[in-house]
Structures are given as C-alpha cells and as structure tokens.
C-alpha cells in the first residue's frame, strides 16, 4: 500500500503522567464493573432501564471481545504489514476445526486445544501467505479468497463426514479446573486475552521486526535495500496473525458451542475488513473500535426499535419488519461514508478532533 497511514504507536503527548495513570485506572475500574452492571442492571442501587443500558447484554460484549481478536490480527496484517486478505474466515475455520479434532473428538484439555488451534491457524496462514512470494496486490487478494474457498470446503467435508448437518458440538471448556460456564467467567478470560494480544502486538511493532514491517508497508524497495528480507517477513506475519485468528476461531466455536461451515462464509471474512475500515486502518486501537461498533450497533438499533415500537410509516417498517436489512444498510453506508470522507476511520477522526481541540485551546 503506497498511502502513508499513521504509525500505530499513539503518543498521548501533552497529557501529564498522573492524568494518564488516573485515566487508565478509571478505564480498568469501568471494565471490571461492566459485567456486574450488565447482569444486575443497577448502578449505585439505581435501577436502569433496558434503553439506558443500550439494550446490551454480556453475550454481545463477549462476542465483541472475540471479534476484537480477529480485527486486531487482521489490522496487523493489512494495516501494519500492508497485506490484504479476504481469507480471515478461513483461519477462524481452521482454528475451529482443530478445536473439533483435539477438543470434541480427542478430549484434550482446553489450553492444549487452544494451542493446537493457534498452530492450525498458523499453518493455514503460512499456506495462504505463500502466493505472496509470487504475486502482489490484487492477484494476492484473489489468492487469499481462493484459499478461503478451499478451507471452507475442507471444513464442510469434515463436518459432514464426522458430524452432521447440525454442526460440530463443543463442550464447556475448563481452564485448569476453572469452568468457563457463565458469561462473566468468559468475560474476564476474554478480556485478559484481548488485553494480552493488544499489548503484545503493539510491542512487536516497536521491535526491530515491527519497524521492518512498517517499512515494508510504506516502501517495499526501500525496506529491501535496508536489508529487510520481505519474503520471510511476510510469511512470518501471516503465521503470527493467523495463529491469533485460529485461536479466536476456536473461542468463537466454544462460546457458541456449535460451528458449521456456514458460520465461516465469505461474509464472515468481509465483516473483519469492514471493522478495520470503520475503526481505522493500521491502528490497533482502531481495530478495537471497529469491532465494538460492528458487534454492538445491531443490538443498539434493536433496542431503539423496541422503544419506538411497531409504528406506522417508513421508520416503523424499517425498524420492525426489515431490521436485519436496515442494520446492513447502515453498516454499508457507514463504510462508504468513512471511505470517502475519513479514510483513517473513527480512530483517525478522533485524533483529528483532538488536535483541533488542542489548537483551539492554545490560541
């Protein structure tokens, strides 16, 4: 990609250290309090209506956290390394398939299953990355799409040979005796995982290889002449990001306790691209924002629909009868508007706003 995208390292320049710490502590407290808030539905003894909670439940939050893993890894691959992939659903599928073999069929412990899913994802990722040694740009995008269809077919065959049309069942996983059987337990497990992935990925970007990665995205020739072996680097990035996606795929299957080949269709892959465009290409924070918007907006809209009710007129019919299509319409338009007016997504918009405010404050 030739266009310069903002480096993902976000500096909070200007803000004094104590304010940053206070902000961080506040965020942490909010994240820890969130599951209690969403299950008890009261705040400081005050009862909250469904609308005040934006019609959100912990299940949506958990699915959002799983999607964040996918969006983070795709944004690392596409936004930071400049490799476009429509094959992200394939890595999810590979992870879910490995979980089915090692978890459902062989009954291995959950941590081992996750490890196997990561390895399976990485293996498919390296396979999908191999065409990048020969073709570039559009042709490479298409090769990831072809890989998607191949993996999806393997998943379909596996599902029908070993299981049936209903899909692959997944048992309730347990982490060293700690059963993940309630949404709250899942929440803390997933939150830790997302935080770990986020910190890990941002740290790799500050390492030697991470800098080489950004150099490769911004100017491949220059990176090569500076001694970066772009071919090896590309395969490595593919392995790393698809391992994350593989783990996310296994978690997704375990969380829903069922997976079919239709769960991982091409539109599943496309939604991750939409997330990183909404959030902001090349920004890991943007990946989190994009996943949050994509997963939470539908239920917010559903909440509004319940509030307004089945009224007459166009809005009533849109919110009642055609709600699924209405959500799709809003997402499609959001992506189009952001692409035309704010190519760096919501994260980019936020930064622009911040600079504007700071300039105002100074003058």
């Amino acid at each position, binding site marked *: 990609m030739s266009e310069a995208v903002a480096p993902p390292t976000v500096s909070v320049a200007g803000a004094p250290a104590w304010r940053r710490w206070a902000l961080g502590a506040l965020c942490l407290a909010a994240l820890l309090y969130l599951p209690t808030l969403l299950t008890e539905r009261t705040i400081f003894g005050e009862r909250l209506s469904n609308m005040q909670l934006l019609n959100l439940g912990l299940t949506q939050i958990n699915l959002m956290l799983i999607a964040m893993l996918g969006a983070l890894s795709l944004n690392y691959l596409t936004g930071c390394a400049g490799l476009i992939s429509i094959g992200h659903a394939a890595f999810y599928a590979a992870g879910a398939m490995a979980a089915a073999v090692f978890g459902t069929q062989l009954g291995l412990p959950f941590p081992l299953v996750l490890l196997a899913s990561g390895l399976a994802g990485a293996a498919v990722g390296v396979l999908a990355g191999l065409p990048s040694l020969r073709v570039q740009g559009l042709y490479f995008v298409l090769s990831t799409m072809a890989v998607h*269809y191949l993996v999806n077919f393997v998943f379909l065959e596996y599902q029908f040979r070993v299981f049936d049309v209903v899909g692959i069942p997944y048992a309730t996983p347990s982490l060293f005796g700690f059963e993940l059987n309630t949404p709250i337990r899942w929440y803390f497990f997933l939150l830790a995982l997302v935080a770990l992935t986020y910190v890990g990925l941002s740290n790799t970007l500050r390492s030697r290889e991470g800098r080489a990665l950004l150099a490769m995205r911004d100017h491949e020739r220059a990176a090569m002449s500076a001694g970066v072996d772009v071919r090896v680097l590309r395969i490595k990035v593919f392995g790393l990001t698809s391992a994350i996606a593989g783990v996310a795929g296994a978690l997704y299957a375990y969380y829903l306790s069922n997976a079919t080949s239709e769960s991982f269709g091409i539109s599943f892959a496309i939604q991750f691209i939409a997330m990183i*465009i909404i959030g902001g*290409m090349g920004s890991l924070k943007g990946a989190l924002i994009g996943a949050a918007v994509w997963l939470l907006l539908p239920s917010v809209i559903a909440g509004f629909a319940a509030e307004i009710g089945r009224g007459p007129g166009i809005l009533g019919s849109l919110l009642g009868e055609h709600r699924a*299509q209405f959500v799709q319409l809003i997402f499609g338009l959001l992506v189009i508007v952001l692409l035309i007016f704010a190519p760096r997504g919501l994260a980019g918009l936020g930064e622009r706003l911040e600079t504007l405010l700071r300039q105002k404050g100074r003058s």
Partner: protein
Amino acid sequence: MLGQVLFSGLALGSIYGLVALGFVVIFKATDVFNFAQGMFVVAGAYLAVTAISLLGLPFPIAILFILGGAALLGAGIQAILIRPLSGRPILSIIMLTIALSIVMRALIEIFYGPSARTLTTPLPSGGFLFAGLRISQLHLTAAMTSWACMILFGLFFRYTAIGLLMRAAADSHEAATVSGIRVEAVNRLAWAIGFTLAAIGGMFLGQLQVVSTELESIGLLALPAVVIGGMQSIPGAILGGLLVGVLEQLASTYISPKASDVVIYALLLVILMVRPWGLLGQRAINRV
C-alpha cells in the same frame, strides 16, 4: 450425459462470460476490481421483475426499461462513489465495492421483500431433442443473446469512434486527457456498459432459476472467470466465463454439487501461481 452437461455448462458459461465482460470493461477503464458485479446481476434480475411483473410493461419496452435503468445506475454509481476514490489504495476501492453490494442487497430486500420471486417472460421456454441432447430453449436463447452482445461490444470497441476513445482512455489516463478526451465521461460510460451487461446476465439467470439476492454468488463467479481468462483481455473474459460454466457443471455432476466452487477456485489458485496474467492476458503484471 457428458454432452448434456457440456451443453448446459457452455450455456451458463456464456452468461458468465457476458457478466465477466462487463467486469473487464469496468476494470480496464477505471482499474476498479468490482466485487459488486454479482449484485449488479441481482439488480438486473429485479429490474426485470419490476418491468415485467410489477409494471406489466410490454416486452420490448420492458427490455428498454431494463437496459436504460441498468445504464443509469452504473453511471450514477461511478459519479457518486467511484470518482471520489480515484487514486486510493486498492483495499479502499475493493471495500467500497463490497460495501456497495451490502447496501444494494439491503435496499433490494427492503423494497422487494426477502423471499424469492419467479420471473416469466415471453421468451421461449420449452425444449427439444437435438442429436440425443435435450436442448432447453431458454438456455439456448440466453447463450445466443450473450454471444450477440459480446460480438456487438467487440465490434463497438474495435470500430466505433467512442470505442476508440474508450480504449485510448483505458490505455493511459494522462495521455487521453492531454489529447482532449473527457476521461470522466468515458469512465462513466464504462460503468454504464458494465452494469448493463451484468443486468442482461441477471435477467437470464433470474429466469433460469428464481430471482433472489442469492443470485449474487452466481454473479460473483465472474471474478474467477476474469482472472482465469486474463484481467486485461476481453476475449479472455469470455473464455474464462465458458471455462467456469463448464467446470461448474462437470464438478457438480461428477463430484458433488458442493464441490463446484472449490474446483473453480482451485483452478484460480493454480492459474495465479503458474500464469498470473491469465490464459489470454498480457504478461505485464507486477511480479514480486
């Protein structure tokens, strides 16, 4: 059996070739790899439903309605969505066309309802036996119309003044602008043509099956068709379309109906590895 499969493969392949031709016209003119081409096919089918079933127009006028509507939609999409994004990285443009197809699908399902509709036209729909093959007249009409359109556009690009302008603009935007060609108008025309060709394909596919947004996945087979044939090549698109049609029918008859996609995409992967510029394309792509 084999002859029957080949016949329906070639007939469907002709329609794919037509859709792929529309794709290549857009790609050559504006460098946009249009993932919404499948949705253009669906839009064509629904234009036909609107004209014939809902408005009850007489057939010749209905045809004009479909062609005109498709051309207007294509030109409008270019003016509103594609032009502001010229010169952006390919992911933005790919995602724009994907978002466009999401919006179009949502709008169609809101206006026409999510359930499938049948499309009946005065076109002959019977069948007859020829050399031991059962020939469906609708398949035959579809194939012949597709070939007529492809030949017509081939001649148009080769021999008319506008066709020459379009080829010049596709060759080099700068050189064309310097020579006084209004490149934007030419691009708009390319999108109008691309949409119209997809819409004609959609009209036939809607009749051969039922009209629903699920036709998109069939229309999207134009993508592998184009790459297999060669992205810059018009005969390549047609050849790719025919190949994809025949392969699809062979795979779903002799292997399993679920295998048709994977066979096509496996061939795509092989082509990308061995001959990335396609069967009939020119060897001028960026190799690593």
